[in-house]
């Protein structure tokens, strides 16, 4: 590890930004290394497709590279790059809408007879059995979240998975904070319901004290009220 790389690894984000602005690539690369996991995770959670998530991640960091001079150092780099990531991924999602998402990248490589040297070399830190159980869990979670209407899914992802505030999520999506809250409630309730179908103990099922149909109606009425507060007021 060179001295510059070592310095970069121990410096805080603000120092790295200022060094990157001065032309230090090691400083910029360290910022990328620190935040690439989160940026990729945001892109993947929004776009739900590996290739699109990779493209969006690359675009987000290229944008950061191009506009680094414009970044005001009193703000946190993490906040800035999160915003760039969310906006880039949402833009890609909008662009993708209406287009079919058929991947052509499914073909097998042609037999050449040549034995290739192992390319992907990395230790396996986890127990494969546990890993597979985790994959099953991931699949169950994926199926439930993919069944949500997109507007509910996006709010849930930004707020609950990526930890944006209600205000930040509202700004990113261009909707009101009240709308974020009501979509979030719908998303949370729908996911809870879906996961209960898998994880709930059917022998210990509970029923609301009053009629279930009544409660469903009450919930719907309440949600409508949330969405259109004017309806609940007297004129």
């Amino acid at each position: 590890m060179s001295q510059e790389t070592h310095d970069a690894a121990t410096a805080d984000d603000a120092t790295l930004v200022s060094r990157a602005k001065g032309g230090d690539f090691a400083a910029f690369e360290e910022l990328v290394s620190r935040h690439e996991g989160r940026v990729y995770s945001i892109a993947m959670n929004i776009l739900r497709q590996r290739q699109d998530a990779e493209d969006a991640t690359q675009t987000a960091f290229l944008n950061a590279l191009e506009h680094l001079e414009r970044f005001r150092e009193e703000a946190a780099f993490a906040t800035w790059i999160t915003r760039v990531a969310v906006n880039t991924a949402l833009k890609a999602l909008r662009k993708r809408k209406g287009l079919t998402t058929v991947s052509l990248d499914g073909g097998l490589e042609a037999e050449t007879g040549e034995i290739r040297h192992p390319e992907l070399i990395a230790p396996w830190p986890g127990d494969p059995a546990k890993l597979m159980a985790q994959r099953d869990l991931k699949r169950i979670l994926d199926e439930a979240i993919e069944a949500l209407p997109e507007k509910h899914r996006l709010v849930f992802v930004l707020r609950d998975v990526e930890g944006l505030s209600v205000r930040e999520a509202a700004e990113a999506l261009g909707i009101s904070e009240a709308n974020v809250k009501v979509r979030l409630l719908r998303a949370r309730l729908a996911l809870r319901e879906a996961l209960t179908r898998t994880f709930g103990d059917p022998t210990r099922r509970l029923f609301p004290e009053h009629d279930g149909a009544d409660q469903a109606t009450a919930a719907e009425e309440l949600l409508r009220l949330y969405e259109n507060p004017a309806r609940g007021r007297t004129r």
Partner: protein
Amino acid sequence: MTCKDLLKMLNDYVDGDVDPSFCSAFEEHLRDCDPCKVVVDTIRNTIRLYKDEGVVEIPILFRERLHSTLRRRWQEKQGGQTRPGGPAR
């Protein structure tokens, strides 16, 4: 507090944003209402599961491509002043 009132405050309660004066009423309701208690518990579990599983590892081959793309772009931008594979001088 009714089950309906509870639903209205569910988000804020789960996020820890509920007004402390309502908090005791909320918790009192939960003590007496098993279905609501289970809903609150399972909503919390739902959020936790998605939060934990939502952390996606960046694929290592992509990470390498990303870094080399950025390095290339950086060099172009700096007019080729950056040494390949090393920090800027």
